[in-house]
Protein backbone atom coordinates (compact mmCIF):
# COMPACT_ATOMS: atom_id res chain seq x y z
CA UNK A 1 0.00 0.00 0.00
CA UNK A 2 1.42 3.40 -0.94
CA UNK A 3 1.64 6.30 1.49
CA UNK A 4 -1.20 8.09 -0.34
CA UNK A 5 -3.49 5.07 -0.05
CA UNK A 6 -2.50 4.72 3.58
CA UNK A 7 -3.37 8.37 4.22
CA UNK A 8 -6.77 7.86 2.60
CA UNK A 9 -7.40 4.79 4.75
CA UNK A 10 -6.36 6.68 7.89
CA UNK A 11 -8.61 9.58 6.85
CA UNK A 12 -11.63 7.33 6.52
CA UNK A 13 -10.96 5.65 9.88
CA UNK A 14 -10.24 8.82 11.84
CA UNK A 15 -12.25 11.53 10.11
CA UNK A 16 -13.96 12.53 13.38
CA UNK A 17 -11.03 12.06 15.77
CA UNK A 18 -7.93 13.39 14.06
CA UNK A 19 -7.03 17.05 14.28
CA UNK A 20 -4.82 16.78 11.22
CA UNK A 21 -3.55 14.06 8.92
CA UNK A 22 -0.35 14.72 7.03
CA UNK A 23 1.07 12.57 4.25
CA UNK A 24 4.82 12.45 4.49
CA UNK A 25 7.54 10.79 2.47
CA UNK A 26 7.38 7.45 4.24
CA UNK A 27 4.61 7.66 6.82
CA UNK A 28 1.30 9.24 7.71
CA UNK A 29 1.39 11.69 10.61
CA UNK A 30 -1.79 11.91 12.68
CA UNK A 31 -2.39 14.59 15.29
CA UNK A 32 -5.15 14.06 17.80
CA UNK A 33 -6.25 14.96 21.31
CA UNK A 34 -4.55 13.03 24.11
CA UNK A 35 -7.89 11.79 25.49
CA UNK A 36 -8.63 10.11 22.14
CA UNK A 37 -5.34 8.17 21.96
CA UNK A 38 -6.74 4.74 22.94
CA UNK A 39 -9.66 5.14 20.55
CA UNK A 40 -7.41 6.29 17.71
CA UNK A 41 -5.04 3.40 18.26
CA UNK A 42 -7.87 0.87 18.47
CA UNK A 43 -9.36 2.09 15.19
CA UNK A 44 -5.98 2.07 13.44
CA UNK A 45 -5.42 -1.46 14.66
CA UNK A 46 -8.81 -2.95 13.85
CA UNK A 47 -9.81 -0.87 10.83
CA UNK A 48 -8.73 -0.96 7.20
CA UNK A 49 -5.26 0.27 8.14
CA UNK A 50 -4.64 -2.89 10.25
CA UNK A 51 -1.73 -1.36 12.17
CA UNK A 52 -1.07 -4.43 14.28
CA UNK A 53 2.47 -3.55 15.33
CA UNK A 54 3.48 -0.83 17.79
CA UNK A 55 7.12 0.02 17.16
CA UNK A 56 7.68 2.40 20.05
CA UNK A 57 6.11 4.94 22.37
CA UNK A 58 8.00 8.02 23.37
CA UNK A 59 7.59 11.66 24.31
CA UNK A 60 9.38 14.97 23.94
CA UNK A 61 9.48 17.60 26.64
CA UNK A 62 8.92 21.28 25.95
CA UNK A 63 9.56 23.22 29.16
CA UNK A 64 7.57 26.38 29.92
CA UNK A 65 8.61 29.55 28.16
CA UNK A 66 5.53 31.79 27.87
CA UNK A 67 2.95 29.03 28.19
CA UNK A 68 2.73 26.17 30.68
CA UNK A 69 4.97 24.01 28.56
CA UNK A 70 3.87 20.75 27.06
CA UNK A 71 4.77 17.11 26.59
CA UNK A 72 4.39 15.67 23.10
CA UNK A 73 3.60 11.97 22.93
CA UNK A 74 4.69 9.96 19.92
CA UNK A 75 3.44 6.54 18.87
CA UNK A 76 4.84 4.74 15.86
CA UNK A 77 2.64 2.07 14.30
CA UNK A 78 3.22 -0.32 11.47
CA UNK A 79 1.05 -2.61 9.50
CA UNK A 80 3.16 -5.66 8.83
CA UNK A 81 0.74 -6.92 6.19
CA UNK A 82 0.09 -3.64 4.32
CA UNK A 83 3.64 -2.35 4.94
CA UNK A 84 2.62 1.13 6.02
CA UNK A 85 3.80 3.34 8.87
CA UNK A 86 1.65 5.71 10.92
CA UNK A 87 2.94 8.23 13.45
CA UNK A 88 0.41 9.34 16.04
CA UNK A 89 1.10 12.38 18.18
CA UNK A 90 -0.75 14.26 20.91
CA UNK A 91 0.13 16.84 23.53
CA UNK A 92 -0.49 16.86 27.26
CA UNK A 93 0.49 19.26 30.01
CA UNK A 94 3.94 18.58 31.45
CA UNK A 95 2.63 17.95 34.92
CA UNK A 96 -0.65 16.82 36.36
CA UNK A 97 -2.09 15.42 33.15
CA UNK A 98 -1.98 11.77 32.23
CA UNK A 99 -2.78 9.80 29.14
CA UNK A 100 -4.61 6.50 28.98
CA UNK A 101 -2.36 3.48 28.44
CA UNK A 102 -2.51 1.50 25.21
CA UNK A 103 -1.00 -1.61 26.80
CA UNK A 104 -4.36 -3.40 26.62
CA UNK A 105 -4.27 -2.98 22.83
CA UNK A 106 -0.56 -3.62 22.37
CA UNK A 107 1.19 -5.62 25.10
CA UNK A 108 4.55 -4.25 23.94
CA UNK A 109 3.46 -0.82 25.23
CA UNK A 110 3.89 -2.08 28.80
CA UNK A 111 7.66 -1.72 28.57
CA UNK A 112 7.70 1.26 26.23
CA UNK A 113 5.37 3.22 28.51
CA UNK A 114 7.42 2.27 31.54
CA UNK A 115 10.49 3.64 29.80
CA UNK A 116 8.64 6.82 28.86
CA UNK A 117 7.56 7.26 32.48
CA UNK A 118 11.06 6.52 33.73
CA UNK A 119 12.92 8.93 31.49
CA UNK A 120 10.30 11.63 30.90
CA UNK A 121 7.82 11.35 33.74
CA UNK A 122 4.75 10.79 31.58
CA UNK A 123 1.98 9.13 33.61
CA UNK A 124 -0.02 6.47 31.78
CA UNK A 125 -3.37 5.96 33.47
CA UNK A 126 -4.48 2.34 33.78
CA UNK A 127 -0.99 0.95 33.19
CA UNK A 128 -0.60 -2.42 34.93
CA UNK A 129 2.84 -1.72 36.37
CA UNK A 130 4.06 1.84 35.99
CA UNK A 131 7.51 1.57 37.57
CA UNK A 132 10.97 2.62 36.52
CA UNK A 133 12.62 0.29 34.05
CA UNK A 134 16.09 1.57 33.14
CA UNK A 135 16.97 3.68 36.17
CA UNK A 136 17.18 2.53 39.79
CA UNK A 137 13.89 2.64 41.72
CA UNK A 138 15.13 5.38 44.06
CA UNK A 139 16.25 7.71 41.28
CA UNK A 140 15.03 11.30 41.57
CA UNK A 141 13.78 13.19 38.53
CA UNK A 142 13.28 12.19 34.93
CA UNK A 143 16.52 12.73 32.99
CA UNK A 144 15.14 13.44 29.53
CA UNK A 145 13.07 16.35 30.79
CA UNK A 146 14.81 19.48 29.67
CA UNK A 147 14.90 20.97 33.17
CA UNK A 148 16.63 17.94 34.69
CA UNK A 149 19.96 18.71 36.27
CA UNK A 150 22.64 16.24 37.19
CA UNK A 151 22.78 17.37 40.82
CA UNK A 152 19.28 15.99 41.45
CA UNK A 153 20.93 12.72 42.35
CA UNK A 154 23.92 12.33 44.60
CA UNK A 155 26.12 9.92 42.69
CA UNK A 156 29.12 9.90 45.00
CA UNK A 157 29.37 6.45 46.43
CA UNK A 158 30.48 5.69 49.95
CA UNK A 159 29.87 2.67 52.11
CA UNK A 160 28.49 4.97 54.81
CA UNK A 161 25.75 6.19 52.51
CA UNK A 162 24.97 2.85 50.91
CA UNK A 163 25.01 0.73 54.04
CA UNK A 164 24.76 3.00 57.10
CA UNK A 165 24.32 0.01 59.43
CA UNK A 166 27.61 -1.43 58.22
CA UNK A 167 29.60 1.75 58.85
CA UNK A 168 28.10 1.90 62.34
CA UNK A 169 29.55 -1.51 63.10
CA UNK A 170 32.94 -0.48 61.78
CA UNK A 171 33.41 2.41 64.20
CA UNK A 172 36.04 1.80 66.87
CA UNK A 173 34.29 0.31 69.83
CA UNK A 174 31.08 -0.01 67.84
Amino acid at each position, binding site marked *: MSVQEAAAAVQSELSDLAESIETR*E*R*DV*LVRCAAKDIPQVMARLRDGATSC*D*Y*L*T*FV*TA*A*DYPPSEDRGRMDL*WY*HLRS*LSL*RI*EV*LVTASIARDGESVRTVSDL*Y*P*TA*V*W*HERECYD*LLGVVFAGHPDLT*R*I*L*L*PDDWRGH*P*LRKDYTEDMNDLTYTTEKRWPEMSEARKPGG
Partner: protein
Amino acid sequence: MATHGRKAPLHNEEMLINMGPQHPSTHGVLRLVLRLRGEMIESCRCVIGYLHRCHEYISERNGWIRSLPLTDRLDYLSPITCEWAMALAAERLAQVEVPERAEWLRVLSAELYRIASHLVFVGTFGNDLAAVTMFLHTFRERELIMDIFEKLTGQRMTCHYIRVGGVGWDLPAGLDREIRQALDVIESRLREYDDLFTNNRILRARTEGVAEISAERCRAYGASGPVARASGVDFDLRRDAPYGVYDRFDYRVILGNRGDCLDRFTCRMEEMRQSARICRQVLDGLPPGEIRTKLPARFKTPEGVAYGAVEGARGECGYFAIGDGTEAPYRLKIRSGGFSNLHLIEDILVGWKVADVVTILGSIDIVLGDIDR
Protein backbone atom coordinates in the same frame (compact mmCIF):
# COMPACT_ATOMS: atom_id res chain seq x y z
CA MET B 1 20.26 -34.72 59.76
CA ALA B 2 19.33 -38.21 58.73
CA THR B 3 15.62 -38.75 58.85
CA HIS B 4 15.95 -42.44 59.89
CA GLY B 5 13.35 -43.67 57.50
CA ARG B 6 10.83 -40.97 58.32
CA LYS B 7 9.52 -39.23 55.27
CA ALA B 8 10.97 -35.76 54.72
CA PRO B 9 8.20 -33.18 54.40
CA LEU B 10 7.38 -32.34 50.80
CA HIS B 11 8.01 -28.70 50.01
CA ASN B 12 5.77 -27.45 47.27
CA GLU B 13 5.48 -23.80 48.11
CA GLU B 14 6.46 -21.05 45.71
CA MET B 15 10.07 -20.12 45.38
CA LEU B 16 11.51 -16.85 44.14
CA ILE B 17 14.78 -17.20 42.28
CA ASN B 18 17.02 -14.45 41.03
CA MET B 19 18.76 -15.48 37.86
CA GLY B 20 21.48 -12.91 37.33
CA PRO B 21 22.49 -10.07 37.28
CA GLN B 22 25.75 -11.95 36.97
CA HIS B 23 25.01 -15.11 35.10
CA PRO B 24 26.98 -16.49 32.16
CA SER B 25 23.93 -17.13 30.01
CA THR B 26 22.40 -13.68 30.31
CA HIS B 27 25.03 -12.31 27.91
CA GLY B 28 25.53 -9.17 29.91
CA VAL B 29 23.94 -7.88 33.06
CA LEU B 30 20.34 -8.98 33.19
CA ARG B 31 18.30 -10.18 36.13
CA LEU B 32 15.38 -12.52 35.76
CA VAL B 33 13.15 -12.82 38.81
CA LEU B 34 11.57 -16.23 38.45
CA ARG B 35 8.66 -17.41 40.54
CA LEU B 36 8.83 -21.18 40.64
CA ARG B 37 6.68 -24.03 41.85
CA GLY B 38 9.03 -26.95 41.91
CA GLU B 39 10.84 -26.75 38.63
CA MET B 40 8.07 -24.99 36.74
CA ILE B 41 8.14 -21.28 36.08
CA GLU B 42 4.96 -19.54 37.15
CA SER B 43 6.01 -16.02 36.27
CA CYS B 44 9.06 -14.12 35.18
CA ARG B 45 10.02 -10.49 35.55
CA CYS B 46 13.01 -9.03 33.74
CA VAL B 47 15.04 -6.41 35.56
CA ILE B 48 17.06 -4.39 33.08
CA GLY B 49 18.93 -1.11 33.13
CA TYR B 50 22.22 -2.27 34.63
CA LEU B 51 23.98 -1.14 31.45
CA HIS B 52 22.07 2.09 30.93
CA ARG B 53 24.55 4.68 29.67
CA CYS B 54 22.15 7.50 28.79
CA HIS B 55 22.74 7.38 25.03
CA GLU B 56 19.67 9.46 24.29
CA TYR B 57 20.63 12.07 26.86
CA ILE B 58 24.20 12.27 25.57
CA SER B 59 23.09 12.53 21.94
CA GLU B 60 20.73 15.39 22.72
CA ARG B 61 23.68 17.31 24.12
CA ASN B 62 26.62 16.18 21.98
CA GLY B 63 24.95 16.57 18.63
CA TRP B 64 24.75 14.26 15.64
CA ILE B 65 28.36 14.10 14.56
CA ARG B 66 29.88 13.66 17.99
CA SER B 67 27.43 11.04 19.18
CA LEU B 68 27.55 8.86 16.07
CA PRO B 69 30.66 6.92 17.24
CA LEU B 70 28.87 6.13 20.50
CA THR B 71 26.22 4.10 18.69
CA ASP B 72 28.80 1.33 18.22
CA ARG B 73 28.60 0.71 21.93
CA LEU B 74 24.89 -0.05 21.85
CA ASP B 75 24.74 -3.29 19.94
CA TYR B 76 28.41 -4.09 20.16
CA LEU B 77 28.01 -7.37 18.29
CA SER B 78 26.67 -5.66 15.19
CA PRO B 79 27.70 -2.01 15.49
CA ILE B 80 26.95 -1.16 11.85
CA THR B 81 23.22 -1.52 12.58
CA CYS B 82 23.02 1.35 15.07
CA GLU B 83 25.42 3.55 13.09
CA TRP B 84 23.32 3.13 10.01
CA ALA B 85 20.04 3.78 11.80
CA MET B 86 21.31 6.98 13.36
CA ALA B 87 22.86 8.23 10.12
CA LEU B 88 19.60 7.36 8.35
CA ALA B 89 17.54 9.40 10.80
CA ALA B 90 19.87 12.39 10.36
CA GLU B 91 19.87 12.03 6.58
CA ARG B 92 16.09 11.77 6.38
CA LEU B 93 15.69 14.78 8.64
CA ALA B 94 18.22 16.98 6.82
CA GLN B 95 17.53 15.55 3.31
CA VAL B 96 21.13 14.47 2.79
CA GLU B 97 21.87 12.52 -0.39
CA VAL B 98 24.17 9.52 -0.04
CA PRO B 99 26.46 8.65 -2.98
CA GLU B 100 25.75 5.37 -4.76
CA ARG B 101 29.08 3.77 -3.88
CA ALA B 102 28.63 4.60 -0.21
CA GLU B 103 25.21 2.92 -0.19
CA TRP B 104 26.74 -0.25 -1.61
CA LEU B 105 29.57 -0.19 0.90
CA ARG B 106 27.02 0.24 3.69
CA VAL B 107 25.20 -2.86 2.52
CA LEU B 108 28.49 -4.77 2.36
CA SER B 109 29.56 -3.80 5.87
CA ALA B 110 26.11 -4.40 7.35
CA GLU B 111 25.79 -7.86 5.83
CA LEU B 112 29.32 -8.85 6.84
CA TYR B 113 28.58 -7.79 10.39
CA ARG B 114 25.24 -9.59 10.32
CA ILE B 115 27.19 -12.78 9.58
CA ALA B 116 29.64 -11.99 12.40
CA SER B 117 26.78 -11.34 14.81
CA HIS B 118 24.90 -14.50 13.90
CA LEU B 119 28.15 -16.47 14.26
CA VAL B 120 28.40 -15.18 17.83
CA PHE B 121 24.80 -16.24 18.34
CA VAL B 122 25.43 -19.76 17.06
CA GLY B 123 28.51 -20.00 19.25
CA THR B 124 27.03 -18.65 22.46
CA PHE B 125 23.82 -20.59 21.93
CA GLY B 126 25.94 -23.72 21.84
CA ASN B 127 27.77 -22.54 24.91
CA ASP B 128 24.43 -22.12 26.70
CA LEU B 129 23.58 -25.71 25.83
CA ALA B 130 26.99 -26.82 27.10
CA ALA B 131 28.28 -27.51 23.60
CA VAL B 132 31.44 -25.45 23.90
CA THR B 133 32.71 -26.80 20.57
CA MET B 134 30.28 -24.53 18.76
CA PHE B 135 31.69 -21.49 20.47
CA LEU B 136 35.23 -22.34 19.43
CA HIS B 137 34.25 -23.07 15.85
CA THR B 138 32.18 -19.97 15.22
CA PHE B 139 34.64 -17.61 16.85
CA ARG B 140 37.33 -18.90 14.53
CA GLU B 141 35.18 -17.95 11.52
CA ARG B 142 34.13 -14.65 13.07
CA GLU B 143 37.77 -13.70 13.30
CA LEU B 144 37.93 -13.66 9.48
CA ILE B 145 35.31 -10.93 9.43
CA MET B 146 36.98 -9.06 12.29
CA ASP B 147 40.20 -9.04 10.25
CA ILE B 148 38.34 -7.58 7.29
CA PHE B 149 36.95 -4.82 9.47
CA GLU B 150 40.34 -4.12 10.92
CA LYS B 151 41.68 -3.57 7.41
CA LEU B 152 38.64 -1.56 6.36
CA THR B 153 38.19 0.70 9.38
CA GLY B 154 41.14 0.16 11.69
CA GLN B 155 38.87 -1.30 14.38
CA ARG B 156 37.51 -4.75 14.96
CA MET B 157 34.32 -3.92 16.78
CA THR B 158 33.61 -0.26 17.45
CA CYS B 159 34.41 0.66 13.90
CA HIS B 160 32.53 3.95 13.27
CA TYR B 161 32.34 3.12 9.58
CA ILE B 162 29.06 4.74 8.59
CA ARG B 163 28.97 8.53 8.66
CA VAL B 164 26.17 10.95 8.01
CA GLY B 165 26.17 11.21 4.22
CA GLY B 166 28.31 8.20 3.42
CA VAL B 167 30.96 5.92 4.84
CA GLY B 168 34.31 6.60 6.46
CA TRP B 169 36.69 4.77 4.17
CA ASP B 170 36.78 3.18 0.75
CA LEU B 171 37.66 -0.48 0.25
CA PRO B 172 41.46 -0.82 0.35
CA ALA B 173 43.06 -2.47 -2.67
CA GLY B 174 42.86 -6.24 -2.54
CA LEU B 175 40.30 -6.41 0.25
CA ASP B 176 37.52 -7.52 -2.10
CA ARG B 177 39.49 -10.66 -2.89
CA GLU B 178 40.01 -11.27 0.79
CA ILE B 179 36.30 -10.85 1.51
CA ARG B 180 35.45 -13.38 -1.19
CA GLN B 181 37.90 -15.85 0.28
CA ALA B 182 36.47 -15.32 3.75
CA LEU B 183 32.93 -15.85 2.45
CA ASP B 184 34.03 -19.07 0.74
CA VAL B 185 35.48 -20.33 3.99
CA ILE B 186 32.44 -19.32 6.03
CA GLU B 187 30.00 -20.92 3.59
CA SER B 188 31.88 -24.18 3.62
CA ARG B 189 32.01 -24.07 7.43
CA LEU B 190 28.27 -23.42 7.57
CA ARG B 191 27.77 -26.80 5.92
CA GLU B 192 30.06 -28.24 8.56
CA TYR B 193 27.96 -26.59 11.30
CA ASP B 194 24.85 -28.24 9.91
CA ASP B 195 26.45 -31.64 10.39
CA LEU B 196 27.93 -30.77 13.75
CA PHE B 197 25.12 -28.78 15.38
CA THR B 198 21.90 -28.42 13.42
CA ASN B 199 21.52 -32.15 12.98
CA ASN B 200 22.97 -32.93 16.36
CA ARG B 201 20.53 -35.08 18.33
CA ILE B 202 21.25 -33.45 21.67
CA LEU B 203 20.82 -29.95 20.30
CA ARG B 204 17.57 -30.91 18.61
CA ALA B 205 16.25 -32.60 21.72
CA ARG B 206 16.82 -29.47 23.74
CA THR B 207 15.47 -27.00 21.21
CA GLU B 208 12.79 -28.69 19.12
CA GLY B 209 9.32 -27.71 20.26
CA VAL B 210 10.72 -25.61 23.10
CA ALA B 211 9.04 -22.24 23.62
CA GLU B 212 6.98 -22.05 20.47
CA ILE B 213 5.89 -18.47 19.87
CA SER B 214 2.92 -17.73 17.68
CA ALA B 215 3.07 -15.03 15.03
CA GLU B 216 0.23 -13.12 16.76
CA ARG B 217 2.18 -13.00 19.99
CA CYS B 218 5.28 -11.78 18.18
CA ARG B 219 3.30 -8.96 16.63
CA ALA B 220 1.59 -8.04 19.90
CA TYR B 221 4.88 -7.89 21.75
CA GLY B 222 6.62 -5.95 18.99
CA ALA B 223 9.17 -8.69 18.36
CA SER B 224 11.20 -8.28 15.22
CA GLY B 225 14.14 -9.72 13.36
CA PRO B 226 14.91 -13.44 13.32
CA VAL B 227 12.78 -13.98 16.45
CA ALA B 228 9.63 -12.83 14.66
CA ARG B 229 10.55 -14.38 11.33
CA ALA B 230 11.16 -17.77 12.95
CA SER B 231 7.52 -17.60 14.04
CA GLY B 232 6.40 -16.90 10.51
CA VAL B 233 5.99 -13.12 10.67
CA ASP B 234 6.85 -12.29 7.08
CA PHE B 235 8.46 -8.92 7.64
CA ASP B 236 11.95 -7.72 6.91
CA LEU B 237 12.71 -4.00 6.82
CA ARG B 238 15.23 -4.53 4.06
CA ARG B 239 12.44 -5.66 1.79
CA ASP B 240 9.32 -4.07 3.29
CA ALA B 241 10.48 -0.59 4.30
CA PRO B 242 13.41 -0.23 1.93
CA TYR B 243 16.41 1.83 2.87
CA GLY B 244 19.75 2.09 1.13
CA VAL B 245 19.97 0.01 -2.02
CA TYR B 246 18.59 -3.28 -0.76
CA ASP B 247 16.01 -3.37 -3.54
CA ARG B 248 18.77 -4.14 -6.06
CA PHE B 249 19.89 -7.40 -4.53
CA ASP B 250 18.55 -10.87 -4.83
CA TYR B 251 18.04 -12.64 -1.51
CA ARG B 252 15.38 -14.52 0.39
CA VAL B 253 13.65 -13.53 3.62
CA ILE B 254 13.96 -16.61 5.80
CA LEU B 255 10.87 -17.75 7.68
CA GLY B 256 10.33 -20.47 10.22
CA ASN B 257 7.06 -22.28 10.71
CA ARG B 258 6.91 -23.45 14.32
CA GLY B 259 8.61 -20.58 16.11
CA ASP B 260 10.49 -22.82 18.53
CA CYS B 261 14.10 -22.48 19.64
CA LEU B 262 15.30 -24.67 16.79
CA ASP B 263 13.57 -22.45 14.23
CA ARG B 264 15.21 -19.39 15.69
CA PHE B 265 18.55 -21.17 15.38
CA THR B 266 18.08 -22.40 11.81
CA CYS B 267 16.65 -19.06 10.67
CA ARG B 268 19.87 -17.36 11.64
CA MET B 269 21.96 -20.08 10.04
CA GLU B 270 20.08 -19.53 6.79
CA GLU B 271 20.26 -15.73 7.10
CA MET B 272 24.05 -15.97 7.17
CA ARG B 273 23.94 -17.70 3.79
CA GLN B 274 21.65 -15.01 2.41
CA SER B 275 23.94 -12.30 3.75
CA ALA B 276 26.90 -13.95 2.07
CA ARG B 277 24.90 -13.94 -1.16
CA ILE B 278 24.26 -10.20 -0.82
CA CYS B 279 27.95 -9.54 -0.07
CA ARG B 280 28.98 -11.30 -3.27
CA GLN B 281 26.49 -9.30 -5.29
CA VAL B 282 27.90 -6.09 -3.81
CA LEU B 283 31.45 -7.09 -4.68
CA ASP B 284 30.40 -7.99 -8.22
CA GLY B 285 28.59 -4.76 -8.94
CA LEU B 286 30.22 -2.13 -6.73
CA PRO B 287 29.86 1.15 -8.67
CA PRO B 288 32.72 3.68 -8.75
CA GLY B 289 32.37 7.17 -7.34
CA GLU B 290 32.40 9.25 -4.19
CA ILE B 291 32.02 7.61 -0.80
CA ARG B 292 30.77 10.59 1.16
CA THR B 293 28.67 13.71 0.61
CA LYS B 294 30.42 16.81 1.82
CA LEU B 295 28.53 18.14 4.81
CA PRO B 296 28.67 21.75 6.01
CA ALA B 297 31.28 22.35 8.72
CA ARG B 298 28.45 22.61 11.23
CA PHE B 299 25.92 19.96 10.32
CA LYS B 300 22.45 21.03 11.46
CA THR B 301 19.10 19.33 11.19
CA PRO B 302 15.99 21.42 10.44
CA GLU B 303 12.77 21.36 12.44
CA GLY B 304 10.73 18.26 11.89
CA VAL B 305 10.54 14.59 12.77
CA ALA B 306 12.14 11.61 11.08
CA TYR B 307 12.39 7.93 11.80
CA GLY B 308 15.21 5.85 10.40
CA ALA B 309 15.00 2.12 10.93
CA VAL B 310 17.23 -0.66 9.70
CA GLU B 311 17.01 -4.42 9.93
CA GLY B 312 19.72 -5.33 12.37
CA ALA B 313 20.88 -8.74 13.48
CA ARG B 314 18.47 -8.44 16.42
CA GLY B 315 15.50 -6.91 14.69
CA GLU B 316 14.34 -3.42 14.02
CA CYS B 317 16.85 -0.84 15.16
CA GLY B 318 15.37 2.59 14.75
CA TYR B 319 16.23 6.16 15.63
CA PHE B 320 13.37 8.60 16.00
CA ALA B 321 14.59 12.18 15.88
CA ILE B 322 12.96 15.54 16.42
CA GLY B 323 15.05 18.32 14.92
CA ASP B 324 15.06 21.93 16.05
CA GLY B 325 17.50 23.60 13.66
CA THR B 326 20.61 23.01 15.77
CA GLU B 327 23.53 20.63 15.56
CA ALA B 328 21.86 18.21 17.96
CA PRO B 329 18.50 16.48 17.81
CA TYR B 330 16.00 18.06 20.19
CA ARG B 331 14.83 14.59 21.10
CA LEU B 332 16.34 11.31 20.02
CA LYS B 333 14.60 8.05 20.80
CA ILE B 334 16.42 4.80 20.20
CA ARG B 335 14.21 1.85 19.43
CA SER B 336 16.15 -1.35 19.77
CA GLY B 337 14.97 -4.73 18.59
CA GLY B 338 16.32 -6.47 21.67
CA PHE B 339 14.19 -4.40 24.05
CA SER B 340 10.91 -5.66 22.62
CA ASN B 341 12.25 -9.15 22.02
CA LEU B 342 13.28 -9.43 25.66
CA HIS B 343 9.82 -8.33 26.78
CA LEU B 344 8.51 -11.43 25.07
CA ILE B 345 10.55 -13.54 27.51
CA GLU B 346 8.30 -12.54 30.43
CA ASP B 347 5.44 -14.14 28.59
CA ILE B 348 6.95 -17.21 26.98
CA LEU B 349 8.95 -18.55 29.94
CA VAL B 350 5.75 -19.30 31.86
CA GLY B 351 5.13 -23.03 32.01
CA TRP B 352 8.68 -24.08 31.13
CA LYS B 353 11.27 -25.58 33.43
CA VAL B 354 14.24 -23.76 34.92
CA ALA B 355 16.57 -25.82 32.75
CA ASP B 356 14.91 -24.39 29.63
CA VAL B 357 15.39 -20.76 30.64
CA VAL B 358 18.93 -20.70 29.36
CA THR B 359 17.91 -22.24 26.04
CA ILE B 360 14.98 -19.89 25.54
CA LEU B 361 16.91 -16.80 26.55
CA GLY B 362 19.79 -17.86 24.32
CA SER B 363 17.49 -18.34 21.35
CA ILE B 364 16.25 -14.74 21.61
CA ASP B 365 19.85 -13.53 21.19
CA ILE B 366 19.98 -10.45 23.36
CA VAL B 367 22.70 -7.86 23.75
CA LEU B 368 22.18 -5.87 26.91
CA GLY B 369 24.06 -2.86 25.60
CA ASP B 370 21.36 -2.55 22.99
CA ILE B 371 18.49 -3.10 25.41
CA ASP B 372 19.60 -0.76 28.19
CA ARG B 373 21.04 1.87 25.84
